[in-house]
């Protein structure tokens, strides 16, 4: 939890620059890249930008933005050619911090849906869990295969003004972006192979192989009999490209809910030659829509009876239903305590200081300083339900203040962190833009983090909002070998 600063008149601090030390001098690990960019020349670079766009078009690398129309708008994935580089030493800290965090959150989920020791010991307030919209009473006591809930996590990391890596949020439900991480690499390598000649970049394209391995590892019938499907809501989902990408890469079926049927607690795929048993479902459908018999009865996206099949131990659902309680933004401030509680270790990666609106003192402070705060609705994602203080209007602040007072449990606030900046190629100029990083963590027999992640960029000058649904872009992310 955040300490309330005694001096509320302090000036906003300057963001950390990933690329330059002082505005002119590139950091050591960027020097070879910088020299190369200087030598390329603008015309050649312009041609490469064009080429990368053609490649993305030809390959159909897209995402969908939900709009007024039912179908959404399909957009080409926005991609900036200048890679972000993370030295090996920095990465090893991130990696061990992520593994630690996921291990603790997984134990937390198991505890919450079984004995609830952490609530009894008063480390996390019980009412916080019970009031959480994503806490699923229906799944209490279910034992998922191998006690794994968080098979795939995407944990958003930012750097503060001092360059320190901080966790911004945990995504433990159906985090997306991994296909774009891989496509970014494919495009970068195709368009600018000369960049790679200067570095030893660690590979990321084996992610689907690791994912497949993890999915097989949780098959209730053992890895020898692991019929796996990717369950998608369908072509209008924003991440549909990713669903097809992963299914194709893993060589498994991409199914919609209507392609599956549950009978006597066993789930089957409807094939031309009859019903075929399914063991593992990598679902990209939210809890709410997963099983109309258990959750939302009006859902046509899920499979009736799938939860009972899961309860009976006949199927693995990845990620486990009910995970949302662990990445609820109201639980986020407790994650360092959760790590200490289950692992008896000090957290390796820290949180962004966070004010809890249920605490009257913190709430009062936040409401007095809204223009310097980010206020987030706890169960929203993708940049929705958010107030960016510095960019807000008095009317909007008033609206949020009212919302917060009405339902404090549903909001948290954080001081505005000036996300670190990186140069981007914008209309012929190199300009600084804010960015974050979403690495992906796979929990199967072991916990694996592919060296890299999705670097998201706020394409609008000065903006701190990086979500692609809000017009963000992306960069290839390089983790260097030792």
């Amino acid at each position, binding site marked *: 939890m955040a300490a309330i600063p005694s001096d509320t008149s302090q000036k906003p601090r300057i963001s950390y620059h990933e690329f330059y030390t002082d505005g002119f001098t590139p950091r050591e690990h960027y020097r070879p890249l910088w020299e190369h960019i200087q030598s390329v020349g603008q015309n050649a670079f312009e041609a490469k930008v064009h080429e990368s766009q053609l490649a993305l078009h030809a390959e159909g690398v897209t995402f969908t933005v939900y709009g007024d129309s039912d179908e959404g708008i399909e957009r080409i994935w926005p991609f900036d050619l200048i890679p972000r580089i993370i030295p090996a030493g920095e990465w090893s800290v991130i990696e061990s911090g992520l593994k630690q965090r996921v291990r603790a959150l997984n134990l937390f989920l198991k505890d919450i849906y079984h004995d609830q020791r952490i609530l009894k010991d008063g480390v996390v307030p019980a009412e916080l869990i019970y009031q959480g919209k994503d806490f699923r009473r229906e799944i209490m006591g279910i034992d998922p295969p191998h006690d794994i809930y968080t098979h795939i996590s995407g944990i958003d990391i930012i750097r503060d003004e001092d360059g320190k890596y901080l966790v911004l949020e945990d995504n433990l439900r159906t985090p997306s972006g991994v296909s774009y991480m891989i496509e970014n690499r494919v495009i970068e390598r195709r368009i600018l192979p000369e960049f790679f000649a200067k570095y030893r970049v660690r*590979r990321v394209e084996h992610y689907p*192989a690791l994912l497949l391995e993890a999915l097989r590892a949780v098959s209730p019938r053992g890895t020898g009999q692991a019929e796996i499907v990717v369950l998608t809501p369908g072509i209008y989902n924003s991440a549909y490209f990713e669903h097809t990408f992963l299914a194709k890469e893993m*060589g498994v079926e991409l199914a919609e809910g209507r392609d599956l049927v549950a009978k006597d607690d066993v789930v089957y795929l409807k094939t031309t030659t009859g019903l075929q048993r399914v063991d593992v479902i990598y679902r990209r459908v939210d809890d709410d829509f997963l099983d109309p018999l258990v959750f939302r009865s009006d859902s046509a996206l899920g499979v009736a009876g799938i939860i009972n099949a899961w309860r009976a131990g006949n199927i693995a659902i990845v990620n486990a239903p009910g995970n949302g309680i662990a990445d609820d933004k109201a639980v986020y401030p407790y994650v360092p305590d959760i790590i200490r509680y289950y692992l008896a270790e000090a957290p390796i990666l820290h949180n962004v200081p966070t004010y809890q609106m249920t605490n009257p003192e913190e709430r009062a402070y936040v409401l007095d300083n809204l223009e310097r705060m980010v206020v987030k609705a706890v169960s929203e994602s993708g940049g929705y339900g958010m107030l960016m203080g510095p960019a807000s209007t008095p009317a909007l602040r008033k609206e949020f203040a009212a919302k917060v007072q009405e339902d404090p449990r549903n909001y948290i606030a954080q001081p505005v962190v000036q996300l670190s900046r990186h140069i981007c190629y914008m209309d012929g100029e190199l300009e600084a833009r804010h960015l974050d990083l979403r690495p992906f963590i796979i929990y199967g027999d072991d916990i694996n983090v592919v060296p890299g992640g999705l670097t998201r960029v706020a394409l609008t000058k000065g903006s701190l909002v990086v979500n692609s649904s809000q017009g963000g872009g992306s960069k290839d992310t390089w983790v260097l070998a030792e």
Partner: protein
Amino acid sequence: MLSRIADSIYWMSRYLERAGDTARLMEINLLYLLEAEEDMSEGDKWRPLLSITSAEAAFSGLYGEGQLTQGRVLQFMTAEKSNGNSIRTCLRLARENARIARDRISREMWEAINELWLNVDQQLKTPLHPLRASQFFSFVRGEVARFHGLTTTTMMRGEAFGFYRLGTFLEQADMTARILDVKYHLLLPDLSLVGSALDYYQWAALLKSLSGYEAFRRKYHAGFRPMDVVEFTIFEQEFPRSLAYTVKRMRRALADTGITGQQRSPAAMERLEGMLAGNSAERIFSTGLHEFLEEFLAAIAALNQAAQADFLDTHREEP
């Protein structure tokens, strides 16, 4: 049809297919080496490619021993005029053969192969820059595939089509056996790497060189077990570049060409089929994969000779 024309169509498709296969092989090798974490010398990275295309001797004859660099291999495999298997040479010969058979192939086929040659000849007038090479290979691969598509949709079925298919599938079988022999030989000994990221990339590269990566992943979910790879690349009936599939298509193509039992190639065809029928991955492992592939390549060479004798030598004997 005239034996000469049959021969031209046969070689047109073989050379064209060889150019496409070589381009795919080079492209995969190039892309996988870009971010190589493992420490391999340039020679180690590129020698297998020369060995797959049996070009080692010609290469060292041209550059001398110990001169194996990426730049030289690229030049040698793409543009070198003295290399009978360089992409440029293959496309030139494919186009020449197409010109000979111009009245027996469709206009679309001719235009496609003619344009491809003109374009590649132009591009290779200056040395291919290593950083632009993968785009060049992808272009060649794509154009070869386009040619096959145009042929399938525009060429009359019958004898000529049989020769076109015989050449294509024979070339494919040959290339699959060669890639498997060389790559497998390199991959297998290092058991310590099984299951590692390196192992993953090496096997993926082998399968991608055969455009079989996705199909393999779909069929086998236990990672890259050597037995599965052999089973898939040799016996998988549904994988278009497996030996079993290509041999089966060669049999059909041979029937379409009108060659009869009186001639030499049906016997050669039977020998090839006999190597697969009743055989299994396990049995091949126990007697030696390399030995099997060597014998298979010899049987392909024998079929090639027999077929040519059947449709060409007859022609030579004519007054």
